[in-house]
């Protein structure tokens, strides 16, 4: 469906997109993840033809899109800041794309009604967009982008302002909808949960380049680099030297899974792999701040002469703040990351 080749966009000195190559197969849902300012929106704008590229090509269904005007590319884009038309009411905003494609009035009305229902705003057709709450506006923007059923739909933070409940419902319904319509989707999100729930593949961006690409499970289980691991929220990343089944780290010897690459690497220990036990048992740590996370508690552990460790405990097993505990590591929850110069995904 979509293919980017060496896509490059520079703003002054800095490259917002730096020779990005990306392939999105038909009917796939791809989520783009990455820190703020890493070029996600720029990527979508470049594909849409809104952002002229300094270099590289965009191909849609094999066709080079250079010179193809935006409205002929047959794609949809939901803007990060919505860009609802203030002069039109909700219904007419959603209907806009349909009218542009010459859809009949009756069908338009029906589709608008249906979509407003989907996003949880039934009967809002005649409301002024300025009188909507933030989340309501986002949902109208989503409905507007969905309405013309483009073959390639690009969503820039489509659910960012919605509460978890609504978001989860929408993720499920959108997946079903996209499957039905055979829509190819390229969605930006900062919510990893959403990315993993929605996406067939995820793309992690960093400073205008692609840091990793793969299935959600892949990326989660085997972050390609310390950057990706950290971005996914894992703080227990440290340089290590792997020899056989164990790695030498600042936290002492940590067991690693079988077949792990050897030598100088970065090592990730997932919080769930940090097992808290008696003080005399393993690495001695003082218990720092505990953060309640709903299902579980994250505990910061302060070893002597070593970087902070983060551990995840069930509510009931959480040690008291200030307590001294011992820590052991679970090989199943450690991942050897691409170290200096190691190929990604190794």
């Amino acid at each position, binding site marked *: 469906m979509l293919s980017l080749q060496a896509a490059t966009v520079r703003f002054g000195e800095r490259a917002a997109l730096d020779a990005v190559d990306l392939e999105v197969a038909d009917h796939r849902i791809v989520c783009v993840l990455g820190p703020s300012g890493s070029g996600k929106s720029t990527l979508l704008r470049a594909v*849409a033809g*809104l952002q*002229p590229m300094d270099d590289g090509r965009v191909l849609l269904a094999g066709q080079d899109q250079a010179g193809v*005007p*935006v*409205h002929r590319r047959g*794609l*949809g*884009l939901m*803007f990060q*800041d919505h*860009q*609802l*038309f*203030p*002069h039109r009411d909700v219904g007419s905003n959603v209907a*806009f*794309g349909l009218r*542009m*494609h010459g859809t009949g009035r009756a069908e338009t009305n029906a589709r608008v009604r249906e979509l407003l229902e989907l996003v949880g705003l039934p009967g809002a057709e005649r409301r002024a967009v*300025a009188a909507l709450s933030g989340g309501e506006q986002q949902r109208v923007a989503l409905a*507007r*982008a969905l309405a*013309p059923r483009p073959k390639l739909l690009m969503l820039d933070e489509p659910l960012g302002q919605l509460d978890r409940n609504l978001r989860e419902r929408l993720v499920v319904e959108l997946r079903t909808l996209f499957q039905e319509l055979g829509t190819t989707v390229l969605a930006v999100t900062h919510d990893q949960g959403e990315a993993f729930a929605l996406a067939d593949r995820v793309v992690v961006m960093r400073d205008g380049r692609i840091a990793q690409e793969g299935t959600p499970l892949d990326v989660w289980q085997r972050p390609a680099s310390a950057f990706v691991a950290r971005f996914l929220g894992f703080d227990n990343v440290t340089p290590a030297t792997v020899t056989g089944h164990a790695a030498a780290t600042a936290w002492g010897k940590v067991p690693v899974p079988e077949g792990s690459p050897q030598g100088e690497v970065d090592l990730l220990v997932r919080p769930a792999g940090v097992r808290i036990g008696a003080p005399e048992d393993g690495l001695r740590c003082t218990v720092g701040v505990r953060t309640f996370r709903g299902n579980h508690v994250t505990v910061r552990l302060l070893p002597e002469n070593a970087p902070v460790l983060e551990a995840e405990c069930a509510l009931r097993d959480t040690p008291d703040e200030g307590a001294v505990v011992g820590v052991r590591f679970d090989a199943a929850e450690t991942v050897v990351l691409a170290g200096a110069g190691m190929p990604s995904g190794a």
Partner: protein
Amino acid sequence: MAVPVAFFALFFAYPVTAIVGRGLKAEGDWQFGRIGEVLSRPDILDVLWFTTWQALASTALTLLIALPGAYVFARFDFPGKQVLRAVVTVPFVLPTVVVGTAFLALLGRGGLLDELWGVRLDTTVWAILLAHVFFNYAVVVRTVGGLWSQLDPRQEEAARVLGAGRFAAFRRVTLPALAPAVAAAALMVFLFTFTSFGVVQILGGPAYSTLEVEIYRQTAQLLDLPTAAVLTLVQFAAVGGILAVHAATVRRRERALKLVDPAQTSRRPRGAGQWALLGGVLLTALLLILLPLGVLVERSVDGPGGYGFGYYEALQSVGAGGSSTFLVPPLEAVGNSLRYALVATLIALVVGGLAAAALTRRAGRLVRGFDALLMLPLGVSAVTVGFGFLITLDKPPLDLRTSWILVPLAQALVGVPFVVRTMLPVLRAVDDRLREAAAVLGASPLRAWREVDLPLVRRAVLVAAGFAFAVSLGEFGATVFIARPDNPTLPVAVARLLGRSGELNYGQAMALSTILMLVCAVSLLLLERIRTDRSGEF
């Protein structure tokens, strides 16, 4: 609100009512019968009809030709943009006599069209329409372009990704957002052309006449005040009708828009289409504006002994051949003009700015009515105002009849509507939440106005100030009527020179017109430079 109301009442409503009243009241009785009488005269009806349709046609043509220009000036960067923007405003200050000359050179015998295709448009209505476009091109480019440059381009992008072509996106998204500014510009162009005087006289010949010409004749030449009063009322009614339509259509369209920094929205043209558009606009401006102006410049340096600056040198002396055409050398007229224009601009800015600020915040019938009333001066003949001043401002403390302040006051009367109309669309587009943001950061309402509204309308204010200044600089009708000690403004001096035979007089008139153009262009350029850089306050 009090200041604008007082200004308006004292210097417009009262004088105009008085002069109209004087006309309709004979021996203490109202003579409303005169209305029917005058309105049943076929020649008056002809004039009314011609006035109306040529104004509508001129407005449509101006919008058609100038809107692409507004776009280009708002969204493209190209070398010489600022200079060109100032230059297209120059026609606005030129005395119509001079413009007539330039247009005849273009459209008349031996003009460009005549030489190229053997077409002559002088004394056709096309000459009038094109001259109207020439005069008012800048009105559209500046009022519409001012807002356009601050519109978030992403709105249009949103339409594009929903499948709208360039034009559809413009029509359905940008145009509605611009509607108030377009309407304001159209209104002003309509009023100018509806009350067109010199252009119609010179380019139309005696065959065409507007209400304004008729009112001038009845008042200034025949002193037939009753007929003049009726015609003034007719003009009032027509203008009032247009204002009502404008108020009704625009109010519904005014919405808070996401305004952005204009510096972010303009870039170099991309692609053949945009270059073609830029080229087309530049070509139009060249043919329609620069060429007529060029004719004037050419004539000002085209002396008997070939090209030279002889006429300019002559301007500095009191008179040729030992006699004096002027008690003051014409160059002093530059100083006079600048002084009057400066005072008039200040008055217009203060009064218009206060009115615009008040009109942004308040709504309601009364306020809206006042909004429309403020436009009326554009639809009233300069003679009416001038004569009205004469019979009203004659008692102390307001015996201003012989005071110099009357000139800038009359000029400001035309400037105020400009200020209001250019500022209002932008002010009303400012999202109230920005003001709220300033308030929660500790800014009082006044401070919030200064910190939020003002920077956002600064462009509009500059545009408005530029217009007010240009209007005053070029104002002829009222200036020439108001009794003034002998310090002629540039247009008055030009008119005097043209009113004499003699080659030197003619040449000096052209030279002085060229100077008038330069003064205008340079003033506007300087005005555009007064843009404290964005970080200035930090």
